[in-house]
């Protein structure tokens, strides 16, 4: 009896399965045909057109690797290989050409009144140290930076890859490490000379009259005339921009992705080549462009006649201070170095 019930159960169960299967099969078949894998799947073309970058999820901890395609690198490539080389060459070769033409036309701007023999302290030891620390770093940073952009077409064919790679490796490390004293220098320059570099009404007059270089007369200038103020703000703002964009590149993926690093590189490179061009002008005026100018950063003192011609307002101020002050600042107690 029990075996009969068991057999019936088995038959019943089998029948149930068969019935279920026969009813469910068309349903499954129907579902399969209603799903269109082509329409449902993500398409590369569509994603690229919509987003420009294709991202997903991966199973390794490195979330950078979840970006699988970002064709923006090709635009960046064009910038780095073509646009930047043009901007850099035009800016740097252009300014050098201008300076040569200017020098041939104007020559060294002399102290009109001749040297008085009286010295005025212009920059103290601290100011000069900061200036030369920043300047030394700048020159090395500029050379190592230009090497990255112009080394391959200009230097590599001359010295070959065996010498060019170690040099570039060294230049890269110099660029990284000297960025710290350079940034410190820019911050100190900003703080110690900000007082004399706020634009004033006198600057407009100075600019209209072409300053002491282009113009033939000597418009009144404060401790820093409008031309020097321009250099100051180029150093502070340009230096700030290269420092910020440089540190973004130096610390990859600290809150950045590849796209922001591309932008940082564009900013860094453009500001840097313009900065180099501006500093070439600064170096020109500070050396062969103007008599008596280098001494300000060399020995720290300038001739009183030079100061009167280029910084009349400052001289008046200094004289006034000396008059009321018990410690005379002028003439300077020590001779020019």
């Amino acid at each position, binding site marked *: 009896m029990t075996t009969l019930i068991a057999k019936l159960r088995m038959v019943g169960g089998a029948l149930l399965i068969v019935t279920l299967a026969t009813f469910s099969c068309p349903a499954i078949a129907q579902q399969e045909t209603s799903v*269109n*894998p*082509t329409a*449902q*799947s*993500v*398409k*590369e*073309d569509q*994603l*690229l057109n919509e987003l420009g970058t*294709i*991202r*997903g*999820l*991966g*199973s*390794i901890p*490195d979330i*950078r*690797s*979840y*970006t*699988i*395609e*970002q*064709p*923006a*690198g*090709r635009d*960046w*490539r064009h910038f*780095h*290989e073509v646009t930047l080389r043009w901007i850099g060459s035009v800016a740097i070769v252009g300014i050098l050409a201008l300076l040569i033409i200017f020098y041939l036309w104007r020559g060294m701007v002399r102290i009109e009144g001749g040297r008085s023999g009286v010295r005025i302290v212009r920059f103290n030891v601290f100011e000069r140290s900061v200036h030369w620390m920043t300047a030394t770093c700048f020159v090395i940073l500029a050379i190592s930076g230009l*090497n*990255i*952009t112009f*080394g*391959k077409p200009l230097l*590599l064919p001359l010295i070959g*890859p065996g010498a*060019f*790679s170690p040099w*570039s*490796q060294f230049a*890269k490390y110099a660029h*990284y490490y000297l960025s710290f004293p350079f940034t410190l220098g820019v911050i100190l320059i900003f703080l110690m000379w900000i007082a004399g570099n706020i634009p004033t009404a006198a600057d407009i007059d100075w600019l209209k009259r072409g300053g002491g270089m282009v113009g033939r007369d000597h418009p009144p200038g404060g401790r820093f005339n409008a031309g020097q103020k321009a250099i100051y703000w180029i150093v502070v703002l340009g230096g700030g921009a290269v420092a910020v964009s440089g540190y973004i*590149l*130096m*610390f*990859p*993926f*600290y809150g950045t992705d*590849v796209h922001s*690093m*591309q932008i940082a*590189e564009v900013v860094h490179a453009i500001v840097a080549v313009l900065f180099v061009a501006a500093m070439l002008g600064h170096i020109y005026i500070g050396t062969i462009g103007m008599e008596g100018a280098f001494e300000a950063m060399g020995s720290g003192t300038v001739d009183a006649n030079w100061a009167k011609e280029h910084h009349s307002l400052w001289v008046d101020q200094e004289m006034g201070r000396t008059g009321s002050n018990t410690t005379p600042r002028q003439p300077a107690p020590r001779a020019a170095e």
Partner: protein
Amino acid sequence: MARMKFLCDADRCIECNACVTACKNEHEVPWGMNRRRVVTINDGKPGERSVSMACMHCTDAPCQAVCPVDCFYTTADGVVLHSKDLCIGCGYCFYACPFGAPQYPRVGNFGSRGKMDKCTYCAGGPEADNSNEEYEKYGTNRLAEGKLPLCAEMCSTKSLLAGDGEIIAQIYKERVMRRGYGSGAWGWKTAYRETITS
């Protein structure tokens, strides 16, 4: 001469990551670096697809163009390789690469990059084929032994194809024809400036 390419048929990829593991093991790729990885798009949603991605060995490779020390070269097979002796670890190839292929070991302070490492298409580097120096820097050189990249060779669903571009494009085309759909040859337009139309 063959023009070697990769093609990932995303409609077949099951995200098993065997290609990633095979690559890391074959070439002793160090910790924290992956020459190949699998990325899933629309994970868990209808229409999800996984793509195995590595260096695509681009035609007119952007990394090669931007490298400031010119350390890249393209072999006769169209494989883009580089010299770790010349690389200075500047990171420019990473900015330019559309596929995020270049990897850098982190050396020294802050984010300082070491010599770049990337997929070699199992073709080593400039050193003598299968020499110790080559193995230490770039991993094995299977191509010199007449073998294809290991990732594609051992792909269980044959989703990842490696070989002559025309042949693998033909295989993909036939697959798309037979099954009636295909999500595209991922990266081909960007890497090779061409698409596979079927």
